[in-house]
């Protein structure tokens, strides 16, 4: 049952990101050119609702749907890994026109060259995993 819910949530996410064009290479380019409010609108309205929902979930001490206590951990404190990793990610995001979520969505939409991007992304994650101990965090 839980499994079906995850698949439905993923499908819903896929439809929303595809139909709002957040999975379009063109929208990402346009965002980095500051030529349209569209992507900024998606991110800021998601945050406006997200901040309220997360605040409510923490404040109300609500349990999960399965009765387990919820604790939303804080992100580990650091600067280097976030700024360096973030910048590398941003370069890839702009060039591929796609972040990890939309890669899967575009694969489903039938844009076969996205599999090259996806292969590169898995390779990148693999290389990070093998050298992570040597990198400054």
């Amino acid at each position, binding site marked *: 049952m839980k499994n079906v*819910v995850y*698949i439905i*949530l993923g*499908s819903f*996410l896929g439809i929303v990101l*595809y139909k*709002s*064009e957040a999975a379009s*290479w*063109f*929208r990402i380019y346009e*965002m*980095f*050119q500051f030529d*349209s409010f*569209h992507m900024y*609108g998606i*991110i800021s*309205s*998601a945050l406006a609702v*997200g*901040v309220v*929902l*997360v605040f409510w979930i923490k404040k109300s001490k609500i349990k999960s*749907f*399965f009765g387990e206590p919820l604790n939303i951990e804080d*992100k580990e*404190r650091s*600067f280097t890994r*976030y700024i*360096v*990793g973030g910048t*590398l*990610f*941003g*370069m*890839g*995001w*702009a*060039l591929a026109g796609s*972040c*990890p*979520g939309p890669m*899967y*969505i575009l694969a*489903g*939409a*039938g844009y076969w*060259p996205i599999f090259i*991007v996806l292969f*590169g*992304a898995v390779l*990148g*994650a*693999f*290389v*990070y*995993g*093998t050298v*992570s101990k040597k990198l400054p965090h």
Partner: protein
Amino acid sequence: MIYQPWPWYVAGPLIAIIMALLILMGKRFGMSSNLETFCSIGGAGKFTDYFKVDIKSKRWNLLVVLGSVIGGFIGAHWLSPNPAVDISDKTVVKLQELGFDSAGTSYLPTELFSLESLADPKVWVILLVAGFLVGFGTRYAGGCTSGHAISGLSNLQRPSLIAVIGFFIGGLVMVHLLFPLIFVV
């Protein structure tokens, strides 16, 4: 209505609701950690302990990925009679100058994402390098757009703000400084 592109004020709140539902299921909204799970499934644990994880505990997120693939299929094939993305005229002009004649007429640039484009080895290199930067960068930063820009910022996390600033530094450098060098007409 549903067949038209969805406006930002519909998409944004829906994304936040998906995030909240995942939290209420005891999970997190984060798509890039699946890249590491793929490594673990492929046997990367033989090379480094980093990938020695319990794959079963990551299964739920792989199901979200499976859903995303299905959602992409539904969105593209059943809900979008017109795939053209209505980007601003200014953007179309800038892209034409870079050699992207498909700007404003398709969902993705055919110059990079059509089967014909793969006849050019340069396109393979561009797509591979782009993917590599995404995969390496997101794991170094500990999250991508979903984990940092949406989930982390919704939880008012300073690390996520630093990461998102990094996303924009990288994106702006790529689009404004490197694109004119990469896409020489």
